[in-house]
């Protein structure tokens, strides 16, 4: 069949049978509108839930410890850390973009300072961990890094009373010998720490409220290996840290230092093997769609996801989208049956016409192509109509929800996400369902010879 002839026939036939094909197309349009509406709603809610409420583009995993409870004491059995090989296995999981291991500081430490801020010096036990600076690069830029990573550099010798150049501090000086002037270690903290201080802590101790941004650059002296609780019996190394910024990736209560620095402290001052195990790892995921798969894979490695909310959210969204898709597929299947019925009716009406076309030189495939092309045009038009319907419905729903729902955290401007692939898929599905609906009647109608068609038509 010629392309021009096909187009002329399709145009003429659709114009002539506009009522019948309109009825079939309307069913598809309604189905597509429903499918796209619910899928766009699912995607939109997912975007808010997984993007803002429970961001699952990053999950933190750890190895759960097995504890033996004995009255008030829990005895740990086995290791609760992961080694470098486990980290490498996580990196190999499909959908994992990067892995950022974390390591706790496994030696006691005392922090002192704060005179410039609150007028009086404080000393406190310090909890700390170390993370890869790349993990918080978006939050604090390159201010958070490991300045002493290059171990070949040696600072100038210094004593306990020596004043080192700006940006450096005397590290390791004791009454028994000199230390060396080395770079101050940048640290980050969680904003929740400042909230906690500005909330209950400062009120209890009658201290001034502080501005978080003004604290950046605040220095603290740290005695690694020292403790006010009990003698550690370890070598004590005095050092200095400086607040570089805030990040949600920082330890909730304590300070977070560059991973390399913590590893060196654990190795030099901690128990044997303290620098070998990571206590957790933050996994960056390529796409939110991969979250469920990645969670499943890390669980197979014997690890637990620390953020249960994200895990539940990912699972909930997977279930929701699957359910919505299944409902949509059922609606579409019913519509395709409707189209099949309409085209079967049309083919019956056009039986004589099909016989005449065959008699003057159309092959079976020519006529099938004509009928299927008509169905495809109907599907395309119905798909476009359905998309417009879905957008209008979504717009109406957004306006209604905006007016009816009270303000709540993460309340989005729209609950719908019409992604380009969804639009393309909706059109493709509409065309496909119409074509599939028309296929069987067109094959059935063209199977007999023209003589048989004309004698019965």
């Amino acid at each position, binding site marked *: *069949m*010629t392309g*021009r*002839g*096909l187009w*002329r*026939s399709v145009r*003429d036939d659709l114009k*002539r049978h506009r009522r019948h094909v309109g009825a079939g197309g309307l069913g598809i349009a309604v189905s597509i509108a429903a499918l796209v509406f619910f899928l766009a709603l699912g995607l939109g809610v997912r975007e808010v839930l997984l993007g803002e409420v429970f961001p699952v583009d990053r999950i933190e995993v750890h190895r759960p410890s097995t504890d033996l409870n004995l009255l008030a004491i829990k005895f740990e059995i086995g290791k609760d850390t992961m080694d470098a090989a486990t980290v490498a296995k996580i990196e190999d999981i499909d959908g994992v973009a990067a892995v950022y291991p974390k390591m706790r500081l496994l030696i006691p430490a005392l922090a002192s300072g704060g005179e410039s801020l609150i007028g009086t010096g404080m000393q406190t036990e310090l909890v700390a961990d170390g993370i890869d600076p790349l993990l918080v690069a978006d939050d604090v830029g390159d201010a958070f890094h490991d300045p002493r990573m290059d171990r070949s550099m040696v600072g100038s010798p210094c004593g306990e009373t020596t004043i080192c150049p700006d940006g450096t501090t005397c590290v390791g000086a004791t009454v028994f010998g000199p230390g060396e002037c080395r770079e101050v270690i940048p640290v980050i903290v969680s904003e929740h720490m400042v909230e906690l201080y500005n909330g209950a802590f400062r009120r209890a101790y009658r201290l001034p409220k502080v501005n978080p941004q003004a604290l950046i650059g605040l220095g603290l002296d740290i005695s690694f290996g020292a403790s006010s609780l009990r003698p550690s019996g370890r070598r004590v190394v005095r050092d200095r840290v400086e607040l570089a910024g805030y990040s949600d990736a920082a330890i909730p209560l304590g300070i977070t230092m560059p991973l390399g620095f913590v590893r060196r402290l654990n190795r030099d001052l901690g128990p044997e093997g303290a620098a070998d195990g990571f206590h957790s790892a933050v996994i960056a995921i390529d796409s939110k769609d991969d979250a469920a798969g990645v969670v499943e894979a890390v669980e197979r490695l014997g690890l637990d996801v620390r953020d249960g909310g994200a895990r539940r959210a990912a699972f909930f969204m997977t279930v929701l989208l699957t359910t919505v898709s299944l409902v949509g597929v059922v609606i579409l299947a019913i519509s395709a049956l409707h189209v099949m019925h309409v085209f079967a009716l049309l083919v019956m009406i056009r039986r*004589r*016409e099909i*016989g*005449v*076309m*065959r*008699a*003057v*030189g*159309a*092959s*079976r*495939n*020519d006529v099938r192509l004509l009928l299927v092309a008509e169905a495809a045009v109907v599907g395309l038009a119905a798909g476009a109509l359905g998309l417009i319907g879905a957008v209008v419905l979504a717009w109406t729903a957004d306006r209604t929800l905006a007016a009816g729902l009270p303000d709540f955290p993460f309340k989005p401007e729209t609950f719908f996400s019409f992604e380009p692939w969804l639009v393309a898929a909706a059109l493709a599905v509409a065309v496909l369902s119409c074509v599939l609906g028309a296929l069987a009647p067109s094959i059935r109608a063209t199977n007999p*010879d*023209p*003589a*048989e068609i*004309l004698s019965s038509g």
Partner: protein
Amino acid sequence: MIQIKDLRKRYPDSEGEALKGVNLEIAEGDFVSLVGRSGCGKTTLLNIIGGLDSVFDGTVEVDDRNLGTLDDVELARYRRRTVGFVFQAYHLLDHLTVAENVALAARFGPGDTPQPADQQARAVEILDLVGLPGPADRRPTRLSGGERQRVAIARALFKRPRILLLDEPTGNLDTATGAEILDLLSTLHADFGLTILAATHDKAIEGAGRRLLRMSDGALTDGEWAPP
């Protein structure tokens, strides 16, 4: 040109054979009248020669092509290029104009008229040839029976076939109109050398054909040369 050997046809719902071993040769340029009572197998024979019915036993060769061995696409091309078929019931498509009906075959294979304007011009030319110069843009429903039959003949001639098959071409027409159609067929045969096979009850067509074949109960019973 047409060679038929031991042609048999049985319809699925029928007990007996519609064609019972028909043997026939038709030379190029023949004008053959096929007569016989209703149900004797005339239409079945025409359908098979015209490529409208591909299920049969025996051999049907047209220009040394065995129709029984052609696939659907080849058979469609044969119907489009080699034969023109005129039905008793005209079988015009009412939603198309007269010219579009005539040029319908061009939609399925452009041949020498790929452009719609050329197809329209050729349709008008053929309509003029069959004595219907005016109504190219009208719908067939606005035409008389005789005019419709002329349109059907024009449609059959559109692709310049070498064989014209007519099934009761005057069956639905009054005597005067039937005579006009007969004149037209005689002219087409004389001027263009078309091979014509017409199944008919019409005594006038019986007389118009150069060769008369009688059919009865699925078999050819008699054949004779008609008067020149």
